[in-house]
Every structure is written in C-alpha cells, then in structure tokens.
C-alpha cells in the first residue's frame, strides 16, 4: 500500500447498461494516474469491466478458472492481470444468460479471492457490480466486510433511478439504520428532457449528493474504439476533469450517508414530478428515513413472526422414496450428493438393520435403484442440464423399465429445465420428470403424491386386458421392516383362495406391472392411512379402479371378514370359509397357550385413534381384562378405535399423557401397552408399545401376547434406570 494512503474499497452500482464499467474503469485509471495502487474487480457475468484497462484483452474469469482447473489447483495468478499503469484487473465472471446461478458464482469468486491477502495490498479496490441488487449473491460486495463506500450510477431515466432506489433498499437491508456507507450519486447523462430535474429530485428525496455529472460525449465511444479508457486518450479533454475530480474525492476521507430508499409510490411521484397528475411534494430526507424505517420492518422482518406452516421433510425425499419402489426403474436425483445421501439412508436403514438383527437381505432397501447426478459447484454456477442429460443417457443405455428424474432445491433454484428431459424418452423406456425442486414443491407427503400421480399417469395402460382372479395391493409402506413378511402372509392367504397379486402399486413393482395395473379387477388398500386413502381416491377418480372395502387385515376378525369379502367378489366364499376355519384353529391353539399365562391379567391400553379391535379381541380371547382403554385424540376427531359399540363405554378420550400416568398409578395394571413409549414405574409391570405397522393376518396380536409372556419373565425394572443422575453428572 502506498504510504499515508488509507485503504478503501468502493462498490460502483447501477442499472445494467448505465455505464458502470466505463465509470469504474476511468476512475481506476484516474486513481492510477495519481500514483495509487488500484484493483478493479468486475462482478458482472458479462466480464467486460476491465477490458479498457487491459487494452481490449478479455481476461480469464475467476469462475472459468475454478470450473476448468478446480478450486484446489486454481491460484491467484490465473485470474489477476496487470492493466493500465499496473492496476490490478480481475473479472468474477459467471454463467451464460438463462442458466445456472450467477449470484452463487459471485459468492464463490469472492471466497476464492479471500484465500489471498490481495485486496489489502492495494490502496483502492473498486467493485463494478451488476445493475441491481438482484439477489444476495450479487450483493456480496456490499457486505460490510468488503465495500467501505457505495457509489450509485444513474441517468435520469425512470428505470435507472428505480434501480438506484432498489440498490439503496439492498444496502438498507444490510445496514439497517446503523451504518452510513453511501457516498453519493454519479450522474451519467443521457440528455433526456428534465433529466437534471429528475436526478436532483431523487437525490434530494433520498438525501444523497450528486457527486459528479458525466456528460454524454463521443469521447467515450472513441476510447472504446481504441480499447482504452477515456483517461488514456491524448489531449486535455473536459470529460477527464470529472474522473480527476472523483479520483481526488476518493483519495480523501469520504462523507458517507445512510441509505434511505423511497417507497415505490413515492419514487414514482417524486421522480416523474409534474409528468403525473399527483402533486409533487419532495419530502425532507428525515421524512423519507422515517417512512422507510417503517417499511423496513416488513422487508427485513426483524420483529415479524414467521407464521407459515413448516414443511415436514421435503418433496424431493417423498418423491424419491416413492419412485424407488418401481424396482426396474433408474431413479436419478438431480442435485448435490447430500440430498441423495439423506434419501439413501432413509431407504437403506431398515435394510441394514434387518441384516444385522435377522440376517435378512432386503434388496430394495439395501441397494435402491437410486443415483445422483452429484451437482458440483460448477453446475450450481453454470447450470446442470448437460450433466443431467449425460446421466439420463447412461441410464437409458442400461434399458431400465423407466428413468425417473427428481429435482432438488439446487437444481430448482438454478433453473434447470427438468421437463425438457422427458424428450429423451425412447420407444421402450419412458423418462419421467418429477420437478419437486427439493421442498419448493412442498413437503414429504406432497412429493410422495406428485410421484405417485405422475408415474401412474405416464405408465398405466388404460387398455390393459383384464386378468381374472387377480388383485392389486395399493399403497404399502414398503420401507417398513415387516413389509416383505406382511406381504408374504397376504400372498399366502390370497394364493389359498386362488387369487394372484397383479401389482404391488408403489410397494414393489416393475414398470411393466404398473402398466398392467388395470388388468386386476379388484384393488386392495394396504392400510387406511391418509396417504393410502388419497391414492385410492385418485385411482378411483382417474382410472375407475374398484376397491375392496377393507384394507389388508390385522387380527382375527378383520382377516376373516376380509377373506369372506374376497370370496364374495371372486365367487369362492366356501373356499374362504375353509381357510378361515383352518387359520382359526391355529389362532385358537396359540391364544390358548398364551392364556395359560395371561388369564386374569389387567391391561392398561393407550391407543391412538385408529382401529385397535385386533388387539382388544385377542386380549379378551386370552381371558385378560382391560382396566383402562384410553385413546389419544388430540384432534378430537370421531372415535374409530373400535367398531364394537359395547366397547365404546369402556373408552376414555385423553389429550394429555400426564393424565394417563396418574390413572395408571392408581389402577395398578399388570400390563401397560401404549402407542408411545411410557416411562416405567417402580413396579413389576410389563410395558410394551403398539407397533406403528402391526403384522398382518390372524396372528397379529398373538405375537404381541407371546412377547408379553416373555417380558413377564424378564421385564423387571433394572437398577440401571437409577443411574440417570450419573449420566447427567458425567455427560452434561
């Protein structure tokens, strides 16, 4: 740094095409002529800020170098060039128009430059920044760690002044009312009618000085032709005086002002002045400041409570978790590896646990048909469509049943056009785009629905021939650890009836099975969950699907009814009766064995408001009794926990688990079973949890009773439970 010169960084802001680069370059040249060491950093993707200083040479941009060499190999010498009188020239660069994220590019370029103590070695750093504060990325140079002072370049054109006002808003968002960083306005004349008046009215209204007026002059065009700045032209041109003055100004301590932007209404009224029918009333700067401070509350929201509904999970994850159950498809996550990783973990977790606990391999969980385009920094800045096309081409080469592409936040924000990828479909393999854009399309459930509906619309053959004696199973929760064993139970019962499963729609099926979905005359819902019911409604409405009234059954009674219903539909009711008798014998034997230990035991049940007769029936069949049946009914919806009217009188609706705990202590049951984990008391009570996804078939509850017997032998409170205090002592 030159002696006795205080380091200063200046941001030159203004509307696109207003002449920022010309003014920045001439200011740099004027400062260099005064003997200052100056660095100019162009922050516009069109990267021509320093061209005149470099004698017409276009220099490599930071982002091009980072893309081509990688951030590990890129060095400052790759991007720093020496221009007129040794001034430093750097261009941040950016993507082609319409692709990628130029704002992110600016952030990355500044991070790269931050690795070097470059700025500090210059007396003045000038940032030439793209027209408006379009996003946070373009505003990086306005952050207080960079720009000490901001210059607004504007003409008297309405939109140029509008942009200048927007820039003030951006600065205000950074600084609130705490800092003064705006040096003033550089007026780049266009020779419009009342131009001086417009600029003056705007300047007065926002409380900023007009520091200089750059006259419209052919000299600028001449300099451009010669690939130099105007300051380098021969002769004592009057235009040079402007930049010499500005150079002198920024060589001394600057008077800085707070940003006081106008509201849109005031801006129009003040700038257009007599051209509107509104009265012209130029408020004093103090008035503008007061007004805009109030407006600021709604812009930056410092006291505003966020009241929107939180999105649980993201649509991308919901869609991906659904799509992978098309087992012969290739599902491509178009995004950074992180997004695919979370989904992979979500899907593979039960698979890993089943290997560990039971030695069972669940192929769809262990190695889902799921890939990621692994969007890197380069694609985030320059756009990721080419990467996506390569991934889709690679997937098509493998001849899958379908290729399903799902977008993440990153690919959504950078504007990759996912729908165009469907044009890559071949006669054999459809390419299906799910533009979830991470959570921009909604939460997990919304992504799940988008995937189901889009895939069904694209694949299902409406002319598929009927396959008699077949059913579809709709809406299984396929990542549950008991999904496959439950399906095996149902497939066995259906097989005994002579009925085959045509398609496990979004449980585990191929694209071709989904195409033939309408071949099955009857559909069976996996469970009456809200998402499954929505899918049922969609299939009924859009494909005319016919559903069995009851979902896949849990427990003795429901399974018996279910088999009889199927028997009615397929004309094999007698066969159903035979199977029920056969299965019932197995049930009776198992319950009888359990009853020898459990008869007379008192059960304290706390269920959620979902049908739980399957458990109540078996408890009563085993000679046990309920001392309490509570239903957690936070939403106070109609009770559906039982279909037996006589049981309703036994049921207590509860809205607080604390209330339940008190009752439990008073009633002293033998067995406590709840829909949530109950803190154990100081007694020899068996505690158990109602499974979220119970086993299907007649023996569902029998297995739970068998567990209670086992727990009765082992479920005494261990003294380990007394050591919580020790944990808090040593691990807090």
């Amino acid at each position, binding site marked *: 740094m030159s002696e006795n010169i205080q380091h200063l960084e200046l941001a030159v802001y203004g509307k696109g095409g207003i002449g920022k680069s010309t003014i920045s370059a001439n200011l740099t040249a004027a400062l260099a002529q005064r003997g200052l060491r100056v660095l100019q950093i162009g922050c516009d993707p069109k990267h021509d800020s320093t061209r005149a200083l470099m004698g017409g040479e276009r220099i490599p941009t930071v982002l091009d170098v980072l893309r081509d060499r990688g951030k590990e190999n890129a060095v400052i010498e790759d991007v720093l060039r020496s221009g007129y009188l040794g001034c430093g020239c750097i261009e941040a660069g950016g993507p082609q128009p319409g692709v990628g994220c130029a704002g992110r590019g600016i952030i990355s370029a500044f991070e790269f430059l931050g690795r070097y103590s470059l700025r500090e070695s210059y007396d003045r750093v000038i940032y030439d920044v793209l027209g408006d504060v379009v996003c946070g990325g373009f*505003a990086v140079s306005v952050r207080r760690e960079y720009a000490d002072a901001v210059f607004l370049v504007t003409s008297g054109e309405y939109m140029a002044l509008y942009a200048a006002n927007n820039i003030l808003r951006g600065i205000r*968002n950074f600084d609130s009312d705490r800092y003064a960083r705006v040096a003033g306005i550089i007026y780049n004349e266009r020779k419009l009618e009342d131009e001086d008046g417009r600029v003056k009215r705007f300047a007065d209204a926002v409380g900023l000085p007009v520091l200089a007026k750059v006259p419209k002059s052919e000299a600028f065009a001449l300099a451009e032709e010669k690939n130099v700045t105007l300051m380098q032209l021969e002769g004592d041109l009057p235009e040079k005086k402007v930049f010499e003055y500005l150079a002198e100004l920024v060589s001394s301590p600057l008077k800085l002002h707070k940003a006081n932007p106008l509201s849109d209404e005031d801006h129009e009224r003040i700038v257009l002045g007599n051209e509107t029918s509104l009265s012209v009333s130029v408020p004093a700067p103090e008035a503008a400041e007061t007004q805009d401070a109030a407006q600021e509350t709604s812009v*930056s929201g410092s006291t505003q409570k966020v009241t*929107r509904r939180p999105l649980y999970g*993201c649509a991308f*994850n919901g869609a991906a978790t659904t799509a992978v159950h098309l087992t012969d498809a290739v599902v491509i996550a178009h995004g950074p590896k992180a997004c695919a990783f979370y989904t992979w973990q979500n899907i593979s977790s039960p698979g890993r*646990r089943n290997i560990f606990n039971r030695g069972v391999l669940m192929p769809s969980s262990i190695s889902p048909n799921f890939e990621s385009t692994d969007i890197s920094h380069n694609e985030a800045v320059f756009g990721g469509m080419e990467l996506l096309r390569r991934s889709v081409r690679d997937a098509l080469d493998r001849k899958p049943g379908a290729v399903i592409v799902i977008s993440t936040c990153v690919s959504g924000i950078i504007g990759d056009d996912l729908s165009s990828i469907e044009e890559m479909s071949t006669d054999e393999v459809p390419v299906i785009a799910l533009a979830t854009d991470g959570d921009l399309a909604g939460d997990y459930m919304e992504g799940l629905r988008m995937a189901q509906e889009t895939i069904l619309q694209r694949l299902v053959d409406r002319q598929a021939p009927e396959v008699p004696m077949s059913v579809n199973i709709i809406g299984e929760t396929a990542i549950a650890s008991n999904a496959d064993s439950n399906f095996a139970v149902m497939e066995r019962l259906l097989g005994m009836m002579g009925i085959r499963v045509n398609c496990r729609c979004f449980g585990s099926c191929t694209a071709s099975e989904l195409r033939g979905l309408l071949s099955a005359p009857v559909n069976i819902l996996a469970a009456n969950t809200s998402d499954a019911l929505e899918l049922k409604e969609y299939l009924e409405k859009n494909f005319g699907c016919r559903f069995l009234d009851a979902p896949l059954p849990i427990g003795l009674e429901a399974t018996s009814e279910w088999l009889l219903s199927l028997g009615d539909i397929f004309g094999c009711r007698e066969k159903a009766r035979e199977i029920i008798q056969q299965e019932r014998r197995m049930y009776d034997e198992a319950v009888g064995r359990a009853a020898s230990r459990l008869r007379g035991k008192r059960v304290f049940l706390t269920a959620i408001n979902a049908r739980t007769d399957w458990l109540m029936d078996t408890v009563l069949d085993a000679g046990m009794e309920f001392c309490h049946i509570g239903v957690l009914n936070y939403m106070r919806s109609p009770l559906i926990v039982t279909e037996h009217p006589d049981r309703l009188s036994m049921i207590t609706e509860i809205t607080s688990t604390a209330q339940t705990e008190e009752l439990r202590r008073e009633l002293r049951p033998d067995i406590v079973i709840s829909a949530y984990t109950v803190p154990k008391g100081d007694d020899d009570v068996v505690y158990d949890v109602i499974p979220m996804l119970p086993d299907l078939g007649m023996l569902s509850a029998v297995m739970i009773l068998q567990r209670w017997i086992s727990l009765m032998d082992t479920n005494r409170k261990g003294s380990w439970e007394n050591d919580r205090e020790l*944990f808090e002592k040593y691990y807090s």
Partner: protein
Amino acid sequence: MTESSLKSITPDGITGSVFVTEGIKNSITLLNAPMGCKFYHSSISQRLMPRPPMYLPAREGEEPSEVNFSNLNDWFFRQGRVPCTWLDSHDYVYGTADKVREALEFIRRNVGFDILCIADSPGASLIGDDLRELCSGIFPDKPTVVLETPGFSADHWDGASAAIEALLVQAGDRLFGSGSGQKHDAPTVNIIGMSLWQKYSEGNIDEIKRILGMCGIKVGCVLCAGCSAEELGNVPEADLNIVLYPEIGTAGALYLRKRFGTECYICDGPPVGFDAVSRFVHDVCGLLGASHEAFDEEMARSRALAWYRINGIHSATGRPNGTLFYVRSIPSEERSYGRFFTEYLGMKQGGPDDAELVFADANTIAELMLSRREFCGIETANPSMGYVDVIPKCTLGIKGALFLTEQVLNGLMTAMV
C-alpha cells in the same frame, strides 16, 4: 478390480461440516436448510456422542401442549439437536434472514450454549444472505461460525476440513481469549482431524490420549471431536499440533501455525497398526523431547500377544497371509489400513468383488452382500448396521491394532482351530 458393483451414496461436505461443529461440547449447529436436511443430522448427532438433548419442548413428566403448528415450530422439531430454519419457497425468493433471525432469538431465549454455528444447506448457499453480520448482531460476545459454502457434492472430509478452519478463523478471537495463557508443565499437543463421523471416534481419542500419556505428553484439545469451548480456548498454548487425518486437519493446523507459530506434525494417515503407531509415537516424542520407554514396553507385549494369536491361526491354516482384503473409507485411512494388512499381516489388496475381508461402512457391506456372501464385512466406517457400541472401541493406537487383528482373525472365511 473395479468398484463397479458399488453405488451406495456417501455423505458430502455439509454432513462433514455438521459433525465437526456438533463435535464441540455444548455447541449448537443451526442448519439454514429445509427440514429434509435436518432429520438425519439431528438423529445421528445424538447417537454419535453421549450427551443429553440440547432442547426438548416437552420434557418427561411435563404436560405436552396440544399438537399444533406453533409448538411444533420450535426449530428443533421434536429432536434434541441441530435445529433448522425449515426453508421453504418463500425463503428462496425473499431471503432467509427473517427465519434465521427468529431462530437465533429463540435459541438465545431457550438454549444455553458455548459456540454457535450456522451451516447453509446447498440450496441456502445460493441465496447469499449475510448471516455473519446477523449472527454477530444477536450474539455479540459468543463465538460464532457461519458456514456459507457447504461444498456441493464434495467429500465429507472436505466439509469437515472447511468447518475446522472456519471455526478457527471466524471464532478464534473470541475463543482463544478464554484460555488460561499459562504454559503447561508437561509437553502438550492438540489433535486435529478427528470427527464424530468417524467410526469409534470416542475410543480412538481415548487411545491416542492414553498412548501419548504413557510418554508424559498431555492432549490439550482434540479439536471438534468431543472438545469443550474451554479446551478450544487453550489451543494456542500447545507445543505441537498433531494432524491424524490429513484431509480433515491440515488446513486448521497450517492456520494455527501461521497465527500462533505452533509447529505441526501431519500424519500421512491415522496411526493404524503396530508399526505406524510406533512411528507416530516415536516421532512425536522426538519433537517434544519425551520418553517413549513405557510405550515401547506395552507395544512389545501387545505385539507378542498378537503374534501368539496370529500364529495359532497361521500354523493351522496358513492364514491370514495372502488373504484378499478391501478397504473403503477416507483415503488416508485406506492407506493406513492397507499398510497394516499388507506389511504386518501379509494380506493382499483385493477389490470389492473378490476380497475375503471387506472393511467399510454398512451400506457398502450390505450392497456387496446382495451380489455375493463369501466375504466377511467388518464395519470400520459410518453409517453402521445398527450395532450399539457401549464399550468404546478403537482402531487407532496399540489397542486398535489388537482390535483389528482380532477382527481379521475372526473374519477369515476358512475353518479355524
């Protein structure tokens, strides 16, 4: 041999960063991210380090409120750690500052912590909000770190490295002021480059401390792997910074050398196996003028024990010599394992499709099991199959060498006597 049979997707930079900042006791990591980025990190962080939940909206014994959106929107979303700003489409257009400000105010009112980190998700990083200014405005006296660039698809160790460096650079002024400023009686080192995400990190840290302790060397701070803010404050007082995993720790160590002049010892890979552990300890003792006599004695005894066990298998089966192994992990760890298995155990480097012993994360092992069963998968990296480790185990140091030897001998597929 290629890795074509493997496609399991591994964590990237943001996960590496989060588990570094979560590795500081009483720290809080706010993810500026959609909720989809939160659940995994919250859940795993709680598992990786034993500690009470940072925040619970309804503690045991207290009456929970009626379920509604207001009490669910407590930024933690019923998980004990790693709150998030649940970014939605509105935030991507209008910026995330409102949410971050409100979340920080909530944290200020409800949660006690020593260090705060805000980590941008890949999507949030495209917006460019100036969160450092916001953060320092709300917490003017607390050490705070803002991780603005998550590393799009970068390896998790790159994210971990960036987070350590950012912590030292951004929070250093407030952290280092808290140190006692006194030199230690015993030679003191810091360990850099470990992370909660590493398998057996707790046991490995204990073992490294133990073997250095045998030489009279004290470990002042294991950066971002179970350390406290106070220990971080004492980082400048160490005589030497030791980098065990160069991918993760080198940048931080070089920063400390530049700022405080503290010399650093950078391992080519973590000390896995008897020879590497000896070399590591002897080098460090040499630099600090410490004695490794006691260490040598235990090392010799341990090698003797290992010889007996290996010899028992070897004399009956000729193994483990020539056994094909495959390691999938962070590159420096792959090198360290590879040297131990080839140079000490006489095994031979194979690939995922032919190795008899596969040392990897559970996803990799599970995926290989689909194509073949004639191998033994030994978990040496996360994610895990689900085994809950109560006793801290280790793969580094002397005990780590014995543990890995044990794993190899029991993992051999041939019949043993």
